[in-house]
């Protein structure tokens, strides 16, 4: 399935559209999605270090999705680099 991932903070530099679309195999978990995103960025945004994605969280609009969670179907996700509000 296609999963859209919205980009925030320093990861916005990865794509001017503000998101990337990934092909995600059925049953993929968030840890797997992370590897897919690292591979995608290595190819399309080589300026973004893999370390940043390693330190980033994935989330829906409602909650953070930790590594063991399955990638939900038909839901736009967001990738959240380390936060620095306030």
């Amino acid at each position: 399935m296609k999963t859209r991932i919205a980009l925030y903070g320093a990861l916005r530099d990865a794509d001017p559209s503000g998101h990337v679309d990934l092909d995600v195999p059925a049953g993929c978990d968030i840890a797997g999605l992370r590897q897919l995103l690292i591979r995608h960025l290595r190819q399309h945004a080589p300026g973004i270090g893999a370390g940043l994605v390693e330190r980033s969280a994935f989330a829906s609009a409602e909650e953070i999705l930790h590594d063991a969670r399955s990638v939900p179907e038909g839901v736009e996700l967001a990738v959240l680099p380390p936060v620095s509000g306030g």
Partner: protein
Amino acid sequence: MDGLHVAVVDIRETKLDIAAALDFVYDPRFGGIASFIGRVREHNLGRIVTGITYDLFEPLALNTFRAIGEKARDEVGEPLKLYIAHAKGDLGIGDPAVIVAAGTPHRDEAFRACRLAIEAVKHEAPIWKQEHYIDGDSAWSEGCSLCEEQRESELQRQGETGHGHAH
């Protein structure tokens, strides 16, 4: 929860308003109102800052603020009124970036709720700060990972070196 106001304020539309925050947490039962305002500073880590751009993942930021409200209520008990608002967009030096206000019957609970809330906003809410410098350069701030596995190892490293978060 009742008595909780959370907001992300697009500063192209309006400013953060401390008077509104204090009005919201007013209650004739309350003797203590503690508040915090975070403003854009002209220096950071030795560089001269000319402004900051805040990026937020709004729906999750608001959800996080609500969860912080519940946590504060669990921590200090009833009654409590809490106001949390964070700015979004381009801010200049001195502009308020975040406002937290807490009202409770006595002052200790107000201080604790206010402090707990601002710490959680800084460490848990999906908000990113891009600093603009006088030389024209810009940089996204080093932040605090929301990724469970990373947080654990970061907390462990802090414990080992004795350094807390500077941000």
